[in-house]
């Protein structure tokens, strides 16, 4: 269960180290948001899978929609001089903790069930 994202991150870091790219300085804050959106998507996907209602297309669409909304908000905030991206950060963080707690519950329940079965 937890193995999939860990393997994925390891692969990603490996590929990233081979690629010579880096983020232009002015897009630094947007990538930070994108990272948050990705983390949110991973936890969201895991939770949906545990609940048994994971739909691939929905996953992809919601991931891009969230990321775009966050980046768009940040850009909008910069152009009018208000740090709206903080709102996106807070929203993502809340969702993260929410998802994490749900995943934890599911995993605990499953672990207990297994224990009972044995």
């Amino acid at each position, binding site marked *: 269960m937890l193995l*999939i*994202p*860990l*393997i*994925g*991150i*390891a*692969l*990603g*870091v*490996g*590929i*990233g*180290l081979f*690629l010579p*790219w*880096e*983020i*232009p*300085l002015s897009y*630094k804050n947007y*990538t*930070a948001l*994108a*990272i948050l959106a*990705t*983390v949110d*998507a*991973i936890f969201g*996907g*895991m939770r*949906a*899978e545990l609940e048994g209602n*994971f*739909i*691939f297309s929905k*996953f*992809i669409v919601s*991931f891009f929609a969230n990321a775009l909304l966050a980046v768009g908000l940040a850009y909008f905030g910069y152009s009018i001089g208000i740090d709206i991206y903080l709102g996106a950060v807070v929203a993502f963080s809340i969702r993260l903790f929410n998802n994490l707690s749900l995943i934890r519950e599911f995993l605990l329940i499953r672990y207990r069930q297994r224990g009972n079965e044995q």
Partner: protein
Amino acid sequence: MSKHSWKIGVGLASMLLGMLLVFQFRTETNVKTYLPQFTTASELGIKWNRMQTDLNKKEEELKRLRQLIQEYNQEEELKSLRMAAGVTPLRGPGVEITLTDVQRPLKSYEDPNLFIVHYDQLELLVNELWAAGAEAVAVNGERLVAQTGFSCAGTTILVGTRKLAPPYIIRAIGDAVTLKAALTIPGGFIDSQILPFELGIKIEIKDSLYLPPYRGSSVFNYAAVVPEETEEPTPVDGEAEVETDEAGEGWEIVGEGEVL
């Protein structure tokens, strides 16, 4: 597909996350290497404010200095320098000292050489006057400046290049009471240099003394002015001692040769 689709989705997202992390970390490291001291805009703002304050201070100083240049009086500076150099005649209160050789007839066993004024006595007297705060000194109408030295040639005393003859009249401008006290102090110049040799001395306090200007040349063939910024440090004590020691040894050898 539906059973494992989440693995693909989450896996892809995780890969993306890993790559993004690496790129972001790279940028962040670069930023910190190139701009170690400025991390946030607010710090830059603080620095900017401080520099602005500094700039204002410097501008005020510049204004003050410009004002100073405008007020700078070249005439005044030149006058004080000329006074110090001794090229202008001066007038002021001070003392007039008259030194004469012994007056009484000498007895046959007395060495006449002991009872006349020597150049070193004159030099000691003048040094004493400078030390007591004399502002200008003249000996027999010859103004003493930085290059003036006392020497003797046969039976006459030379001050600078001018020959003197007794009586020696030394005029000094300064606080007359202090100057007189400096000479008459017990164990001072008069006690040690005048009384043992029965020389004649007369110290008069004058309200107005005239000192003529220095009339010698002031040509510098060898010395050149050093700009103030490039002033060389004065040698430390150790080096100076070494040099004097060497000079001393050299002198000893020459002296022995002459004696032998």
